[in-house]
């Protein structure tokens, strides 16, 4: 067992983990942040995507000990304290970008990273390409792509302000 310290959604946390403990296990089982899902557990589906130091990462394919000192953001860390949704969450709701909802947390986390990494603009084709690491088995991609395109100006406007 190793003791690790990291920041999750802005809060300092520490935990005892085994070498083999996955980041997603730490988040879900030790910290109770069950918004991050485990879909395939084989690095394919992206339901477990979180941000590690600002980059989207599959938390089922990273050891918890590797997150020592890192800043993690999960789906629970997006909305403001008063409940105001992150623009990406708001646009997912607005455009009904979910069916069963299982892939949604990972989709939202990936989508935010995609928009942040492309400040100059994003075409529909680019959004579809960039979403390669996230699978929606309801095949609800069309509205997800619409939601991301709609969130783009909101997110960059906010940054500019």
């Amino acid at each position, binding site marked *: 067992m*190793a003791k690790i310290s990291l920041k999750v959604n802005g809060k300092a946390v520490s935990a005892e983990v*085994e*070498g*083999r403990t*996955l980041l997603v296990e730490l988040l879900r089982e030790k910290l109770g942040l069950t918004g991050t899902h485990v879909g395939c*557990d*084989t*690095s394919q589906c*992206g339901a477990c*995507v979180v941000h*590690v130091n600002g*980059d*989207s*990462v*599959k938390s089922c*394919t*990273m*050891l918890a*000990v*590797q997150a*020592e000192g890192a800043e993690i953001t999960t789906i629970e860390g997006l909305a403001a304290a008063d409940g105001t949704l992150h623009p990406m969450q708001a646009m997912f709701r607005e455009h009904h970008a979910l069916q069963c909802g299982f892939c949604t947390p990972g989709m939202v986390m*990936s989508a935010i*990273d*995609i928009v942040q990494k492309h400040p100059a603009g994003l075409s529909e084709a680019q959004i579809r390409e*960039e979403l*390669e*690491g*996230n699978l929606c088995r309801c095949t609800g991609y069309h509205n997800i792509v619409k939601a991301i395109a709609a969130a783009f100006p909101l997110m960059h406007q906010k940054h500019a302000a």
Partner: protein
Amino acid sequence: MYDFAYQKPASVADAVKLLATGPEAKVIAGGQTFIPVLKQRLNKPSSVVDLAGLGLSGISVSGNTLTIGAMTTHATVARSAEVKKAIPGLAMLASWIGDNQVRHRGTIGGSLANNDPSACYPAAVLALGAVVKTNKRAIKADDFFQGMFTTALEPDEIITAVEFPLPVEKSAYEKFRQPASRYAMVGVFVAKGPAGVRVAVTGAGQNGVFRVPEMEAALAKSWSADAIAGVKVSPEGLNSDIHGSAAYRAHLITVMARRAVAAAG
């Protein structure tokens, strides 16, 4: 996953010492292949030595060499202005590995040390005549890759960086993805640089990455997609599976090579 002792040394020398403690001590770089392998219990390490604390990440150009640190992620290579300028085909290749999330963790050193027969990086390293630097020596690409999942690396040897000779006049990579896994069924890197004109193929060969001398000779005479249109690659030694026969892959090699030459301009 079996449990193991996790270690994160702060120097290459310490990492080598930890690896020398036993044959079951394994290295983790980005972990994008290794963690899935551990999950399947295909490997039972006594300890896992993380290279993330060794300062092996970074990209620099000095004189006629582009150096990429072993722990540099695919995303960093793909976005690097220096790589895009010096060897555009290499940035292109990095931007197509896995998906965004894999590219944020996966590293060039990890890809090369693993030498998966479908990995993309070996094609670039071989085609560009790069040199793999380790804690012990410098290994030429031609000597480094020794068959499926096999390299010249010794058990306590760690890749520290990869050096690409410059100037590279032309470079491009094209791959035909297996539709579900998205791994390269056939990936071809073409290059014209200090190592000459080279064509390296990944994904297709039973023994991993290999060069195609007939194409290299044809392209050295005339750099054009038409110059290699008539080159027939032998299906002997190529993979044959439910995704495609050896003959299909042999045909794809010429198709992908032509596309790569056209993309390189």
